[in-house]
């Protein structure tokens, strides 16, 4: 019989983030399909609020590694905590969310326990007693299902790939697992976060809309001139009013890096596509984007898609968008901003 381990780090306030609850949803579902044993394991500064929140998830055991040494996302201590939890649970399958914190350590942990790992998992299915996972290869260009015989098998589920677990909170006291922290594990000190100012925060993972700006915004317009300051104003105004997340093509981001006339708020962090992110949002609106497959993979996981482009044959949009507006994005976005009420 399989032992399914749901493994998660807690947030600063001791609760679980949405990606962790999605991983729990997948773990509960897999456990039901395999008729196995579910174990929940948590690590972080404190684990009690998270344990109480998922007390009714059906886990037969609740394990935790807690303490100030485990508050920060540091490889040495996180890996030691996860290793101890995996060993204590004697799990055959481990499901955790592909957050930056768990993605940093889980492959290393897997090697310590003699298991195997698959990341960016988008689906987990059980049939005839075997487990199959689905993930993308070649940067979201080829999708494959795979199975492994080696155990423990650690699966990192991509955020947004499963519905979050929902259930009533309760009260449970997790078994605390002691993890000795040596001085060599404290060679790295996490000093904090650099966060963009609120008015310059353009990446919003939970936004309903992804707004993709292409290099066309910085090119000469019909009057033969570039209008970069106007483009900046239009885009910032739209992001402010719509609360959309901002994505960009590689070419536009690289213009910024080369100090050419480009949008000042754009960085590599905004880049979507072959060498950027593939965010998940219910809707996407692309403007002034050009390009074929390498760029379009950037909105592989966008639900409804619309595009504004002067080129009716634009590869970004044809066959990949639901609606292509053949129009001047400067003109249209100005009107859109006028219609949107300030939020």
């Amino acid at each position, binding site marked *: 019989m399989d032992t399914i381990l749901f493994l998660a780090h807690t947030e600063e306030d001791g609760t679980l983030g949405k990606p962790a609850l999605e991983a729990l949803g997948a773990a509960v579902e897999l456990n039901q399909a395999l008729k196995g044993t579910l174990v929940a394991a948590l690590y972080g500064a404190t684990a009690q609020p998270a344990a109480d929140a998922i007390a009714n998830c059906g886990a037969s055991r609740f394990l935790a590694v807690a303490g100030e040494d485990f508050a920060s996302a540091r490889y040495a201590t996180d890996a030691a905590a996860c290793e101890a939890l995996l060993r204590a649970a004697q799990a055959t399958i481990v499901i955790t969310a592909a957050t930056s914190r768990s993605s940093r350590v889980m492959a290393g942990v897997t090697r310590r326990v003699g298991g195997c*790992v698959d990341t960016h998992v988008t689906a987990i299915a059980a049939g005839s007693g075997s487990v199959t996972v689905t993930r993308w290869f070649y940067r979201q260009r080829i999708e494959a299902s*795979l*199975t492994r015989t080696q155990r423990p098998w650690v699966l990192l589920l991509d955020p947004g790939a499963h519905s979050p677990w929902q259930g009533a909170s309760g009260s449970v006291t997790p078994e605390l697992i002691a993890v000795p922290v040596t001085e060599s594990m404290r*060679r790295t000190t996490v000093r904090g*976060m650099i966060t963009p100012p609120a008015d310059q925060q353009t990446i919003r993972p939970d936004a309903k809309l992804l707004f993709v700006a292409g290099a066309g915004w910085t090119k000469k317009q019909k009057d033969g001139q570039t209008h970069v300051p106007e483009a900046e104003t239009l885009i910032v105004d739209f992001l402010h009013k719509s609360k959309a997340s901002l994505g960009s093509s590689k070419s536009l981001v690289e213009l910024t890096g080369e100090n050419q006339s480009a949008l000042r708020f754009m960085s590599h962090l905004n880049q979507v596509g072959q060498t950027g992110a593939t965010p998940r949002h219910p809707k996407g609106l692309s403007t002034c984007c050009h390009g074929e497959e*390498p760029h379009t993979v950037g909105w592989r996981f966008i639900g409804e898609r619309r595009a504004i482009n002067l080129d009716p044959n634009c590869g970004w949009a044809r066959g990949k968008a639901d609606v*292509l507006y053949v129009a001047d994005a400067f003109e249209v976005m100005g009107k859109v901003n006028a219609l949107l009420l300030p939020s």
Partner: protein
Amino acid sequence: MTNPYHVVVCASVVPDPLQTLEPITGPSGPALKNEMMLPAILDPWASHALYEGANLVKHIAGSKLWLVSMAPKAKLQQVMMTVAQKVPLQLVAVDGPSSGFADAHQTATALAAAIRGIVGIDLSRLLLFGGWESASRSAGVTLQLIGEELGIVDQFQGVDAITPQEDGSFEVLERVEGARHQVSLCAGPPAVLGWATGNLGEPRNDPQVGMANMRTIMPALQRATVAAISADGLQYSNVATPKQQRQTRIVKDLPAEDIAREIVQWIKQE
């Protein structure tokens, strides 16, 4: 700065992103159609790691840089013709598959063995660089596995900057959720850094650097050890490109006001 680094950059070879990829079933599992014929490049994120590593070595006296790459030898030679012109490097070649479907665990074991075998390397000075994910397997696990094999417990992923300090420590910026960077201070090497884009542009081709590199690259290719990667309990099914093709409604000759109204209505729909 008195503490030189031994920088090892692990970089795979991937198909040029402009190529259309079509999966097929080969004798040892899934593969790409005409894989050996597809033009290849050095993995994009690993390339950033190479440029950052070369820059670090240039500014810290006594530091050294090795590029460790596993790929079919002929493919690696083709890619090196371009890469060699970018920065001074010493190649350590491993003759093995560069396919995205090859198992990362065995790949990591082969690469760790190649790193241990580098003549003159001091593993206590090691900064193990690479891309935080490849453009082939896109898993972000190989570097971690190599790091563990080499006993390195200071690891960073999604790195955009490393700043050496006077005391031998270094500050690292890692990408985390919400467009933020986590700032960490590491006491010193050894460490693993999986790079995102960093801050450096692609260096211009320098034929002189290319000629100097090629003197050591060709012998390195001839010395390449062969790595056999087996499936080892990994089985694929349903390997396919997405078939989803949308019926795009093309809206032409509609006034901007009407388009804007339609877009706003669409945005506001739940």
